[in-house]
């Protein structure tokens, strides 16, 4: 791994972690339940992006499977929570 690529990866992951911390702030503080769902969705997406950058860092395509799984779970959970807030039940 060349120093250029390594520093780019460190920079990107630093940005992601700061972004995750900010979203976590919104998750804790968020005045309404929708805010928390939105922040949780953003956190899941950032976790997926981190995994994809780690795949480049460790040269292993196995990380993609984990990234796909995280994004699927993130989608299902935020959709279920939004649906619950909308109607009061998940499955009508």
């Amino acid at each position, binding site marked *: 791994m060349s120093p250029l690529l390594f520093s780019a990866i460190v920079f990107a992951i630093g940005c992601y972690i700061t972004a995750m911390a900010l979203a976590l702030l919104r998750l804790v503080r968020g005045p*309404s339940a929708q805010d928390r769902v939105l922040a949780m969705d953003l956190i899941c997406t950032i976790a997926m992006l981190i995994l994809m950058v780690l795949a480049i860092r460790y040269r292993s395509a196995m990380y993609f499977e984990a990234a796909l799984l995280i994004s699927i779970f993130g989608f299902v959970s935020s959709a279920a929570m939004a649906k619950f807030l909308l109607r009061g039940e998940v499955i009508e």
Partner: protein
Amino acid sequence: MIPPLPLWIEIPVALLLALSGLFTLGAAIGVVRFRAFFQRMHPPALAFSFSAWCVTLASILYFSAQDGVLSLHAWLIIIFLSLTVPVTTLLLSRTELFRRRNAGDPDMPPPLSACVQPPDNGGPPQH
């Protein structure tokens, strides 16, 4: 030992990764700083669209150059995100409209069709 990649591959990959980091940071700043919920819903789309595209492009470039085969695996992530993000966004915006209208918020626009109008006469909210 894997030989190092040529510089003309590494520079675009590094640039794309840095760009995606910056846009994700922007998305999180937007989520924290705006006051209205609908304003806050826009910035996360930065992370869902442009950041994800940049990382995907970077990983396609990197793995294709490393293996010597076109490795389009990461496209799946973009396809998947473009299918799921609209669903979540739509549900969340409808939730916000529904709950704020039921709470009687004057900032929310009136319903487009008369049959979903919440009761004006102080009736119980439809929960």
